[in-house]
C-alpha cells in the first residue's frame, strides 16, 4: 500500500527539488529581515520602540513572506497540472484523497517551519539591535508580542493551504495566483461593499481573510472574532476550499 508517509516523502522531495520555490521563500523571508534590521538600526527613538511595536513590524512584513509561501503552494499544485506530472503522480498513488492530502500536509509543515523562522529570527535580531541602542524589548504574553510570534506560523499555514485549495479547485496558475493576491481586494472587498450598502458597520471585520490578520497583530480589539477565532474562521474557509478541491479532483479526469 502506498502509505501516507510514502506520499509525504515524495511530495517533500518534489517541493525541494524546484529552485524557484527556494527563491520565493528566501525573498519573502529576506524582506522581513531587511525591513526589521533597517528599522532597528535607523529608528530615531529606540527607547520608545517596544516589544509590541517590533512584533507588529514583524507581523505586518511577514504577510509578504506568507504570500510568497502561498505562491509556492499554488505553484506546487498547479505546476502538477501544467506539466502533467499529476498523471504519473496519480498513476503511482491511485488513492487521490491520499495523494492530495499528502501534498497538503507537506505544504502545511513547510509553511509552519518557514513561518516560525521568518517570525522568530528577525524578531530576535531586531531585539538585539534595538536593545543595543537603548531599548528594552523582550517577549511578553501581555503585550501581544508572544502571540504574534506563536501566531505567525499558523498564519503561514493558513495562507499556504489557501493557495493550495485554490490551486486544486482552479488547476490554473494564473487564476489561482490572481485570487490569492487579489482576494482581500476583490472578493472580500466586494462583499464588504455590499454589506456596507446593506447597513453593516465595518463589515471587513466579519470576513475570513481579514479576520486572520488577528494572528499577526498585537492588539486584536478591532477584530470581531478575536485572535484564535479569526484564525479558526479563515481556517474553516481554507478547509472548505481544500475539501472541495479534493472532492472535485477525485471525480475529474486528469
Amino acid at each position, binding site marked *: 500500500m502506498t502509505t501516507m508517509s*510514502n506520499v509525504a516523502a515524495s511530495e517533500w522531495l518534489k517541493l525541494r*527539488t524546484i529552485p*524557484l520555490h527556494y527563491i520565493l521563500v528566501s525573498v519573502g523571508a529576506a524582506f522581513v529581515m531587511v525591513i526589521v534590521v533597517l528599522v532597528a538600526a535607523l529608528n530615531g527613538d529606540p527607547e520608545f520602540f517596544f516589544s509590541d511595536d517590533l512584533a507588529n513590524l514583524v507581523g505586518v512584513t511577514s504577510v509578504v513572506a506568507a504570500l510568497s509561501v502561498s505562491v509556492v503552494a499554488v505553484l506546487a499544485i498547479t505546476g502538477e497540472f501544467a*506539466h502533467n506530472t499529476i*498523471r*504519473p503522480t496519480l*498513476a*503511482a498513488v491511485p*488513492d487521490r484523497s491520499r495523494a492530495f492530502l499528502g501534498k497538503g500536509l507537506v505544504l502545511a509543515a513547510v509553511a509552519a517551519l518557514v513561518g516560525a523562522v521568518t517570525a522568530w529570527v528577525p524578531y530576535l535580531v531586531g531585539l538585539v539591535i534595538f536593545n543595543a541602542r537603548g531599548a528594552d524589548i523582550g517577549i511578553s504574553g501581555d503585550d501581544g508580542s508572544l502571540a504574534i510570534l506563536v501566531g505567525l506560523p499558523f498564519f503561514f499555514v493558513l495562507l499556504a493551504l489557501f493557495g493550495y485549495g485554490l490551486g486544486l479547485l482552479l488547476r490554473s496558475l494564473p487564476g489561482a495566483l490572481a485570487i490569492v493576491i487579489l482576494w482581500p481586494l476583490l472578493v472580500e472587498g466586494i462583499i464588504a461593499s455590499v454589506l456596507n450598502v446593506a447597513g453593516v458597520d465595518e463589515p471587513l471585520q466579519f470576513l475570513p481573510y481579514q479576520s486572520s490578520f488577528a494572528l499577526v497583530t498585537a492588539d486584536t480589539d478591532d477584530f470581531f472574532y478575536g485572535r484564535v477565532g479569526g484564525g479558526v474562521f479563515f481556517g474553516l474557509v481554507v478547509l472548505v476550499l481544500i475539501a472541495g478541491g479534493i472532492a472535485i479532483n477525485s471525480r475529474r479526469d*486528469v
Partner: protein
Amino acid sequence: MIEVRGLTKRFDDVVAVDGLSFDVHPGRVTGFLGPNGAGKSTTMRCMLSLDRPQAGTTTFAGRRYSEIDRPLHEVGALLDAGYVHPARKGRDHLRWLARTNGLSDTRVDEVLHVVGLTEAAARPVKGYSLGMRQRLGLAGILLGKPHTLILDEPANGLDPEGIRWIRDVLRHQANEGAAVLVSSHLLSEISMIATDLVVVGRGRLVDQGTVADFVDRNSETFVQVRSPHLAHLVDVVQAAGAVAAPLDPAAPAAGAGIRHMTVEQVGEAAAANGIVLHELLLRRDSLEDAFLRATAGAQEFRTTGPSGSGGALVPPPGRASGPVTGPPTGPPLNVPGVPPGAVPPPPAGSGGAS
C-alpha cells in the same frame, strides 16, 4: 495479463472510446494501433483510472488499477515523456516517483544506468533531448520491476536507433514474462516493436491478432516488371484480365505494376510472347497501406490530396466503390505505348519485396 472489457469514454457528445474490449498477454509485446484521434491515449488513461470511463473495466492480473497496493511494482505506465517538471533534475524526477511506492534511491540509480542516463541525471530535464526524455520515462516505468508495461507512442520523434533501443528493451521485458502494450499511429513503427496488434478506429476495435496476420489480411500484392518492351507486355497481361500501371508515371523506365496475375503467370506470358524481362518480382503494399486499408472509415480526421481532389484517399485498385485508403490511383496510365486510362497504377515506392 491486461483485460479490457467494454470500455466506453465520452467527452460531452463525443464518444472517444466505444465499448472497447481486448487482451494483452504476458510475454508478448502488443501494439495498440490506430489513426490520430482513434482513442488510444484516452483508452490508456481510462485503463489507469486517470480518466473516468462511463462504462467498462480494465484488470491487471485480475485486479483493477485502483485496487493495486503499490502500482509501480505491478504496472509501469509511460503516457508521455513530457510529463516531467522542466526545472527538476532527471534523477530527482525518478526519486519522487520511487518514494511514492517505497522504492529506494539505489533502485533509481540502477534504472538510470539501464537507460544510460547516469551522467545526464544530474541536469534539469529542460536540457534533455526528446530521446533523453523518452529514456527517463522508460526508467520511470522500470523502477518497480513491473509485470505489465503500458507505453503511449514511445517511439514518437525518436530516430531509428532510438526506436531500435526501445524495441530491444520492450522485447527483453516481454521475454522476461511482462505483458507489454505499446501504442502508435504508425504500423511501420509498431511492426518493428510488437508481435501482436490491437487496431482501433474511432474508439472501436477494428482488428486484433498478430502483426503478420494483420498485414496478410489487409495488404495486397502485385507483380513488378521492367522490360524494354513494356508496352507490349502491358497489352498482353491486360488482354489476360490483369490490371497494369506504371510504377512511376514520371519515370517509365521504372517499370510497371501488374495486379490480378501471379508472378509465374506474368513470366510465362512474357516468355510465350518473346518479351524480354529485366525485372520480375512480387511486391506487397507497404505496412502503412495495410493500416490505412484496415482503418478505412475509422479516421477522426481526413484530408484530401495535395491537389485537394482527394488524390491521397481514393479507392485502391479493385475497390472502385470501396472506402478510403490504399495506394493512390493517380492519373490514367501513361506508359509509352499503353492506352491512357486503361488501368490504375500500383503504388510508387511501395513497401519492400516479399
